[in-house]
């Protein structure tokens, strides 16, 4: 019995030897790890990027990059947060690719290395990064992370259905959307709608644009959408942008051609149930392959709320964040980030995934122009962004899930319970203000 106990203890103590102990000090390579959410086409492109780095610059400077797929962007954040909270920095990856919803959780972390810090010896490199993408990740004049997988919102439409209804141009404004959607709508003999003009229930993603681009540039919350401090209240009810938008949206609903779908919109579009949807540029390849040759897909700029709404669109997608895990890898991290955002690598990434290049030099490459000529749909996104106000940015707010539903439920309530746009705007603002104040309670001493 005694021997058995001793044996068991030895086995238990020996077990940890089976697990990796991290890199041995004797290796000539500096290894950096990169947690990322890229799967499918983007996953293959990520592998390609890393191989290319490890073969060239990495080999020269003795850097090895290891990519670890950690699930969706949200999952990467979920796994990162406990490590940041535990204050045990050794477990941190050197790099993590996250989307905008991560900003609030990470921006104050002591382990974060901002891009300004990384680039302190080469600040000029940052001017090569497209301004709007830089702004999209700037907090209090500090670039928090390196823009990498940048996207915008786009209007996808069914070209065949447009042609059949005798419509030659995609809509420019929401008024156009209402007229066009009404023409596209089809019903069966019982009066049930079989083909909808447009499907959407606007929420954070759409409203950042539809509220933000009014009058050239409008902020949804104070502190410039949260980019200069933690927002304390929303502004869209005071400045009337929400009422303006809701009035236009109600008009679209009144034509009977708007489907209030919140889920599987790509599927509804591809299976020919709806003529127009709004989705990210990064969905382009996916939607095109889902549609196949059933009909011709068109993409166009996000419709403007009205003729004065000239602000364009904001940059979505994600960026790569750098962390200090005590291994002093800053120089290697910076080399890799420069490589990943170089003109050539961004071109390859763009062609493989549909995310648009974040390096301004990419747009001058002959290969980029050639690719655009062959795939004009890809050009719409970058063209749309280049014509946008670079100050138009996404919102950084706490309780993002609750705010997402506050927008959706508030708008649905207006449509179905016949509220006026004024009532709906006020109710949504009130609910969201509650969440913003909630955040300040967590910071107050």
């Amino acid at each position, binding site marked *: 019995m005694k021997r058995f106990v001793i044996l068991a203890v030895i086995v238990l103590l020996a077990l940890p030897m089976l697990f990796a102990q991290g890199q041995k000090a004797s290796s000539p390579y500096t290894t950096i790890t990169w947690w990322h959410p890229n799967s499918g086409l983007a996953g293959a492109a990520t592998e390609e990027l890393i191989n290319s780095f490890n073969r060239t610059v990495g080999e020269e400077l003795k850097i090895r990059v290891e990519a670890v797929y950690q699930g969706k962007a949200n999952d990467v954040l979920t796994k990162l947060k406990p490590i940041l909270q535990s204050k045990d920095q050794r477990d941190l990856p050197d790099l993590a690719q996250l989307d905008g919803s991560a900003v609030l959780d990470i921006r104050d972390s002591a382990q974060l290395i901002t891009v300004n810090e990384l680039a302190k010896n080469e600040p000029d490199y940052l001017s090569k990064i497209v301004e709007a993408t830089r702004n999209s990740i700037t907090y209090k004049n500090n670039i928090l992370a390196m823009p990498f997988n940048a996207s915008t919102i786009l209007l996808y439409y069914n070209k065949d259905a447009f042609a059949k209804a005798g419509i030659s141009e995609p809509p420019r404004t929401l008024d156009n959307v209402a007229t066009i959607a009404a023409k596209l709508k089809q019903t069966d003999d019982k009066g049930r709608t079989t083909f909808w003009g447009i499907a959407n229930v606007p929420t954070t993603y759409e409203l950042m644009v539809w509220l933000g681009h009014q009058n050239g540039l409008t902020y949804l919350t104070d502190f410039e959408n949260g980019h200069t401090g933690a927002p304390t209240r929303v502004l869209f009810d005071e400045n009337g942008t929400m009422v303006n938008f809701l009035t236009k949206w109600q008009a679209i609903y009144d034509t009977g051609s708007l489907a209030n779908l919140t889920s599987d919109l790509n*599927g509804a579009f591809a299976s020919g149930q709806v003529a127009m949807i709004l989705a990210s540029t990064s969905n382009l390849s996916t939607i095109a392959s889902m549609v196949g040759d059933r009909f011709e897909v068109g993409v166009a700029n996000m419709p403007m709320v009205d003729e004065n709404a000239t602000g364009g669109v904001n940059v979505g997608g994600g960026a790569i964040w750098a962390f200090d895990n005590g291994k002093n890898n800053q120089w290697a991290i910076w080399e890799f980030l420069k490589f990943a955002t170089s003109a050539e690598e961004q071109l390859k990434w763009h062609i493989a995934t549909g995310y648009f290049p974040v390096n301004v030099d990419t747009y001058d490459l002959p290969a980029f122009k050639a690719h655009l000529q062959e795939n004009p749909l890809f050009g719409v996104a970058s063209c749309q962004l280049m014509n946008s106000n670079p100050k138009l940015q996404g919102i950084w707010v706490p*309780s993002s899930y*609750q705010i997402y539903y506050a927008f*959706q439920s508030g708008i649905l309530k207006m449509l179905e319970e016949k509220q006026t746009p004024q009532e709906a705007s006020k109710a949504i603002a009130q609910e969201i203000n509650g969440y913003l104040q*909630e955040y300040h*309670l967590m910071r*107050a001493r």
Partner: protein
Amino acid sequence: MTCKPYIMIFPALLLVVLFSYIPFILTFFNSIHSVSLSGERLGFVGLANYRRLFGNQSFHASLSNTIRFTLFFVPTNITITLLAAVLSNRKGWLANLNQIFFFLPMAVGMSSMLMIIKMMFNPSIGIINRLVGANIQWFNDPNAAMALLVIAGVFLGFGFDFLLFSAALRNVPNDLKEVARINGANGFQIFRHLELPLIAPTLVFIIVTNIKNAMLISAPVLILTEGGPFRSTQTLVYQMYLDGFKSGNYALGSAIAIVVFLLTFAALLILLHLERRRIYYQ
């Protein structure tokens, strides 16, 4: 050796204290303090968290959704499992085969099962809409989404409850049933007046665990609907997860946890009280 029982109970007690009682007390403390993003308690606020919670629209939705789910789920689940158990409670290899098929769902991991259900119910490419020949918007229509949750819940709970019912029905003495049959009772009468009273303790146990599971439902919500459309399937525990873990609002999350606990506890107390008066134990 009077200390032996204490030594025997110690490991279990340690686990319970470490993973149930201490977290429960901490949760309660958090719910009456303001708590920072990194989880430190900032100051005592009394019932302020609860007051804000009860004024929160999202919480109203969660509360009504959770109660609705419980009201739909518990009767549906018990009717279906009990029916299956009664019908397959006979001799012969076919009945055995049926029983195996009925409790087989228990052997599948919950998450993988839910992922499969999600695919099956996809409105444009799923098999369910194809089979029923209708275009039901399972993830866009609030009522359909709630129905989907109930279906998923029944599917997940079916195997275990079926097993318990089957075991209880087998324990009903055969000679009693024979006596009843000789005296001219039909199948329904035997079930109503003989089997049902005898399996009542199991029935109560299943009702209690079902109510508990229904009040605490979160995994199917997380995987299938994420609370949508329009918060129509956001349950209390899912909101606790959103507020507490996704938004880092530990104080509000803890307050929700305490409310869920009190609600579930109250429901169970009432039920156990009824049980003490009405149920006959062999």
